[in-house]
């Protein structure tokens, strides 16, 4: 539902059904709403059967990459004699994205249940939920829920009285966007600087503590209990366009839009209806100008492109961008695109772990050049330099932070070039000049 707004009739609330309902936070309240039935069911199945149900459902990762979840789980080989780990990525830091925060605030037991089912399926005795350090409220709520689950025997040495050991620990981050990258997150759990690792080896071969590890996003795991209870066929039937995109997805809407918040829709939903019906369209007297639909790391869309997009993994790619994390950032005609892109570049420059030259230097220099243009001190050659730098920042580094910085720069110059040129020829920001 459209928390903090009332649910919109066009939404399909599955994960967000209990947002805003504080009773759902407690173990008792969660059980009254059907909680932990799926875990009980899963613990009565073989790990391979659980993996197969998730595979059949078509569920794909909700953190950004969209990798098939069941396939990822199948890379783990229970009984290989090694300790297995599950890492839950709750380091939600992608600008524009705030869905996992809401899941953890309102339905902490949904995450514990999904994680425990995954732990059983991949043979992991230990699960770490890595929550970004700034999420103080979700941290408190998750800690309390884990404690309740232990006290009730749901977690621990004999999970739900069914035999396996399932330990879940909450691990607090300490301020670093890059720790949302899966191998950086594992380094961070190990007590290291959050530098991404070169892959291969992939986490299923050598993840946290060098052992076989699965890492999933919060939202991905929360879909799993619903899949087990309602069946893979039900989940697969939730698809409005591409059969490769199944289920519901939470989209966070923010920026200059009438009703920011989280909205849950079936994949394939028309983006135009999302922006104008669910989110209420522009603020009074304004016109929407641009959208970054999948968190700040994906290419910017013009409204023309956005309004013809279908909201699934394939639909966003068909319109030149990506679904990413589902963080929809909307800009209206009062917003200076150069300023917004410069501020995003500054974000990436601040968050670069600095181990790759292209990223360390590229994010810093693009920020300086963009800020110079925004102040009215840029030249036309600066645009060429930005594009050249962006090319050197794409596909050349250990992780994709550098590529993410380049995406809004390249798409911004391509689609809003007149705004860049107006800053350069007019020697000032036309938007702030008009406001002054």
């Amino acid at each position, binding site marked *: 539902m459209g928390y*903090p707004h009332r649910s919109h009739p066009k939404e399909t609330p599955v994960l967000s059904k209990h947002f805003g309902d504080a009773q759902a936070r407690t173990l008792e309240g969660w059980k009254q709403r059907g909680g932990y039935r799926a875990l009980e069911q899963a613990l009565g199945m073989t790990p391979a059967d659980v993996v197969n149900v998730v595979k059949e459902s078509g569920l794909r990762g909700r953190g950004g990459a969209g990798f098939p979840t069941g396939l990822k789980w199948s890379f783990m080989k229970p009984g290989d004699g090694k*300790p297995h780990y599950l890492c839950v990525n709750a380091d*939600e*830091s*992608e*600008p*524009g*994205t*705030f869905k996992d*925060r809401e899941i953890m605030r309102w339905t902490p037991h949904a995450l514990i249940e999904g994680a425990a089912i995954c732990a059983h399926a991949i043979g992991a005795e230990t699960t770490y939920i890595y929550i*970004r*350090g*700034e*999420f*103080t*409220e979700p941290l408190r709520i998750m800690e309390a829920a884990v404690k309740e689950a232990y006290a009730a025997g749901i977690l621990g040495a004999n999970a739900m009285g069914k035999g396996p050991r399932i*330990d879940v*620990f909450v*691990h*607090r*981050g*300490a*301020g*670093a*966007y890059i720790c949302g990258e899966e191998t950086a997150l594992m380094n*961070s*759990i*190990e*007590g*290291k*600087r*959050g530098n991404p690792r070169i892959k291969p080896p992939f986490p299923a071969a050598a993840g946290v*503590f060098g052992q076989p590890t699965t890492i999933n996003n919060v939202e991905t795991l929360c879909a799993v209990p619903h899949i087990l209870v309602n069946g893979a066929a039900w989940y697969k039937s939730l698809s409005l366009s591409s059969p490769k995109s199944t289920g519901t997805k939470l989209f*966070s*809407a*923010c*920026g*200059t839009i009438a009703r*920011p*918040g*989280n909205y849950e829709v079936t994949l394939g939903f028309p983006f135009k209806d999302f922006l104008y019906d669910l989110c209420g369209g522009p603020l009074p007297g304004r016109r929407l100008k641009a959208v970054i639909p999948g968190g*700040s790391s994906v290419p910017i869309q013009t409204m023309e492109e956005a309004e013809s997009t279908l909201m699934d993994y394939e639909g966003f790619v068909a319109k030149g961008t990506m679904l990413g994390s589902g*963080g929809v*950032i909307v*800009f209206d005609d009062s*917003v200076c695109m150069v*300023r*917004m892109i410069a*501020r*995003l570049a500054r*974000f990436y420059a*601040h*968050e670069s*772990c600095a181990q790759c030259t292209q990223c360390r230097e590229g994010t810093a220099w693009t920020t300086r050049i963009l800020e110079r243009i925004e102040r009215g001190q840029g030249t036309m050659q600066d645009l060429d330099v930005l594009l050249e730098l962006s090319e050197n920042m794409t596909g050349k580094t250990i992780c994709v932070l550098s590529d993410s910085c380049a995406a809004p720069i390249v798409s911004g110059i391509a689609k809003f070039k007149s705004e860049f040129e107006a800053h350069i020829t007019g020697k000032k920001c036309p938007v702030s000049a008009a406001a002054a």
Partner: protein
Amino acid sequence: MSAHGTDAAEAYKPVFAGAVSGELDALLARYPTKMAALLPALWLVQRERGWVSPEAMVEVAERLGLTPAYVKGVVSFYTMYHTHPVGRHFIQVCTTSPCGACGAEKVVEAMLKHTGCGDLGATSPDGRFTVIEVECLGACGFATPVMVNDDFVESVTPDKVPQLLTQYK
């Protein structure tokens, strides 16, 4: 501390004594390596002392079998550990693009004015506040989110700032 420590260092009182030491032991049981308890240990230090001093880094290193240089390297990687003392109330205002489009800079201005801090990163003369800009707090639909110590405040606007600050003495 070693025999070469300064007077101030000689007076250093360990963080990991009594109940806090027990908390660290409980954390160590969660991980297969001692090093993995580093971030949680540093959180305990900051909770107890308000910041992570060089002496505390030495103490953490000794407890976890690491070198002080290693601990400093990790501390400096993460933005939330304070490596110098800050005001009693540490204020972080999100100014990344989504909040920036919704007026976050005006919130920063109001914070700097009403706290008396004047500049970002500076502590007010009465030691009460320090204000910084922070990168995306992950609550973009509630622009502008602000953290005051561990309190997460949503939808802050410049006019709400004076009232908000009265809660922090």
